[in-house]
């Protein structure tokens, strides 16, 4: 049904360059940056989740709000590189249910991160009850584990690579 759209997108200069350029700065570096964005955003989120679960308990929870600009950086790097990777192989991702599972898990995990960061807004004062923030921190880790696994599985689970094939 969406094949005309996929065919048009795959024929654009950018999509073709992403797939066929022999430059390391095309597909390879954009893919690598997608992993760097993941490491920054999810890595710092995981450190925050661990703190909520009781690790390094002498770090005031509000200090984790200092990572917000870096978390935004990681997120934006991955939105931009993710869109570029999607433009390279739109049929591959958009015809694969695992891709929508990944997006859903990322969305849920980001929403949880927002709730948890809002909960530690006033410096050391925590507005979320500890048991609730612990449960949400576990949920956050589970969502990110799911999102990473789903992302990795995209390389193995696609049924079509290009609409033009």
């Amino acid at each position, binding site marked *: 049904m969406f094949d005309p759209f996929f065919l048009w997108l795959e024929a654009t200069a950018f999509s073709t360059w992403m*797939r066929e350029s022999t430059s390391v700065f095309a597909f*390879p570096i954009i893919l690598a940056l997608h992993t*760097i964005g993941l490491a920054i955003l999810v890595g710092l989120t995981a450190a925050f989740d661990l703190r909520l679960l009781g*690790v390094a308990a002498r*770090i005031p929870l509000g200090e984790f709000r*200092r*990572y917000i600009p870096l978390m935004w950086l990681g997120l934006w790097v991955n939105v931009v590189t993710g869109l570029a990777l999607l433009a*390279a192989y739109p049929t591959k991702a958009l015809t694969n249910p695992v891709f929508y599972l990944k997006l859903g898990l990322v969305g849920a995990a980001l929403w949880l991160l927002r709730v948890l960061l809002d909960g530690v807004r006033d410096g050391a004062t925590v507005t979320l009850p500890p048991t609730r923030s612990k449960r949400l921190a576990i949920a956050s880790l589970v969502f990110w584990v799911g999102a*990473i696994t789903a992302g990795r599985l995209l390389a193995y689970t696609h049924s079509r690579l290009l609409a033009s094939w």
Partner: protein
Amino acid sequence: MGSVQYWLVNTLTNTEPVATFMRTAWGWPIIESIHFMGLTLLFGSIAAWDLRLLGLTKRVPIDAFHRLVPFAVLGFVINAASGSLFLLTEPDQYFYNPAFHFKLLFMMLAGLNVLVFYTTVFRRMDAFAVGDDVPVQAKFAGAASLCFWIAVIICGRLLTFYRPFPCEGDEARALFVRCLL
């Protein structure tokens, strides 16, 4: 060097029972996913520590942040273990791969940085004063750590594109298209 690589590849290829497990439908993808979780844990924990050294969260006593370092070590152990499973299955894809050589180089530099940090400047940071800047040598160590681990991740992700036999396998996407067309 050539004979060392040849010996490694011959010794490690198809190590059982690892290779049988890795060649099942779920083996390689699951271990890859675990490898990505390990990198996230390693990078996130060490970045929080490095950023404290660099002064981002300097209102907090430095030893409070040091409690995150064991989780970076855990992430490293997870990745050394999961990474070994790849090497024990397809060693030729790594030992003849320039991206893997650079990845090892940056891992060694990161390790050397840790070694120098703990044997020199860390011993002099016994005051652990709240709100204090750490010595400039410690800031350099923090910045170097961030750079080296980012380089390790980039080289790791580039492995696919510098494999010695790019037309085999299913994920060398840019090369994949060229090899098939």
